[in-house]
């Protein structure tokens, strides 16, 4: 898969490097590998136990990762439970699906919502019982921010299906190295110089990728809410 071609009159954009083909750790183009291992949707909708065994193994990393993102800081012991609950909820929705590509984004979406609910319930419970000592241990900036995110995350305004659709579109829009560079900067806090070195791109192109990535996410977000 060829990396994002960036065009434009801006001199910075002309310096963007074109990436070669991108493959995952199995040597297959990303996306194609996932489709090769995807379960049969019709078998799932029939309730085929073997198909579901395969599906649960395929979906478990997704549900777990989505739950872990939300819960690891405050309720790490609940991550597995929430991931299991998310997969149970997914079973109820499988008959509404039209393609197997919907499974993973929906699993992530459901796990996210369940994790947020679990977090809010835990905070509310502790505040109600005036047991704030354990929360105070986390009451540094990151802890306050995590609580605020749990209470006021922009994703919370999206229903499960809407969030799943947004994730599907984002997956398509954030072709490598766009998604990787966005993660490097926004999730891992790397500086432009570090990203350029890590990804083997020109320093001036890092900002271009970030700008394109932010614009892509913004377009998807706005369209999703229309």
């Amino acid at each position, binding site marked *: 898969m060829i990396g994002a071609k960036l065009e434009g009159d*801006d001199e*910075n*954009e002309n310096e963007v490097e074109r990436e070669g083909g991108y493959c995952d750790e199995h040597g297959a183009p990303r996306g194609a590998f*996932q489709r090769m291992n995807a379960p049969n949707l*019709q078998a799932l*909708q*029939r*309730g*085929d*136990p073997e198909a*579901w*065994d395969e599906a*649960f*193994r395929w979906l*478990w*990393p*997704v549900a*777990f*990762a*989505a739950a872990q*993102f939300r819960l690891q800081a405050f309720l790490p012991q609940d991550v*597995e*439970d929430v991931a*299991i609950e998310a*997969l*149970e909820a997914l*079973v*109820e929705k*499988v008959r509404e699906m039209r393609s197997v590509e919907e499974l*993973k*984004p929906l*699993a*992530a*979406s459901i*796990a*996210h919502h369940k994790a947020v609910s679990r977090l809010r319930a835990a905070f509310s419970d502790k505040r109600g019982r005036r047991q704030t000592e354990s929360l105070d241990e986390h009451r540094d900036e990151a802890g306050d921010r995590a609580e605020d995110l749990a209470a006021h995350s*922009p*994703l919370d305004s999206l229903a499960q299906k809407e*969030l799943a659709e*947004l*994730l599907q579109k*984002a*997956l398509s829009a954030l072709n490598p190295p766009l*998604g990787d560079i*966005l*993660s490097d*900067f*926004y*999730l891992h*806090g790397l*500086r*432009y110089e570090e990203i350029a070195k890590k990804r083997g791109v020109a320093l001036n192109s890092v*900002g*271009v990728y*970030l*700008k394109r990535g*932010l614009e892509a*996410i*913004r377009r998807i*977000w706005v369209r999703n809410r229309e």
Partner: protein
Amino acid sequence: MNEQQFFDLAVKVIAGQASDAERRELEALLAGRPELKTEFERLRDDTRIVREVLPLVSATQASAGNLPAYARGRLQTKVRQTLGGQKASTGSAGERERKMMWRWRWALGLASATAVVAFLILSIFSRPSAPAIQVAMLDTAGATRGLDANEAALLRQTWEKATVDSFSSVEDLRAWEAKLRAQRKNQGVKVVFDRAAGEVRVSGRWKGRSFEKVFLIEQDLATTLRQADAFIKEKTNR
């Protein structure tokens, strides 16, 4: 300063990576040009959304990690309860109706022939048949770790033909029991392993007689299950 340069400066400030000099430069820019302030606020909102979305996009691509063994039983129970192994329907309504009619005709013809054969066989080889045994495992303490798979295996060993359903709430167990009562037509045995209570409950009905007993797990589960099985055999004359 062009658009890209402003963007680079703004995102660094938002990300907390800017130096004091860069922050002052941005402040001066925003003070002088209100339209840039709007753009800056939009970038801040975008950053917030991206920080929420990216981890989930990354999660959607996750492939590492194994499904815990104890979770499999619970998830398969959910599949059975929700989807029940039903086949997806295909074809037009008219076609389905025609197929249904033919199926009924075949079924009636086959049923008649079967009834005759069955009567003959029964009268020659009459032998008491075994009751259907349904087994459930209740763990209200939350998802169990590791032991759950062993216990399920023990239950399956004791009653080879039974399906073992796993439940984590009393409400789900009640729903299962209600479904069994509707299906059973007054024959059959129900075994419930209540992990939290440390007991195995047996109840059933066979040839017009009801029976039930609770077995406390005093030694170990395997011993208790043998006792329960012996009780069932005694009550169903096997």
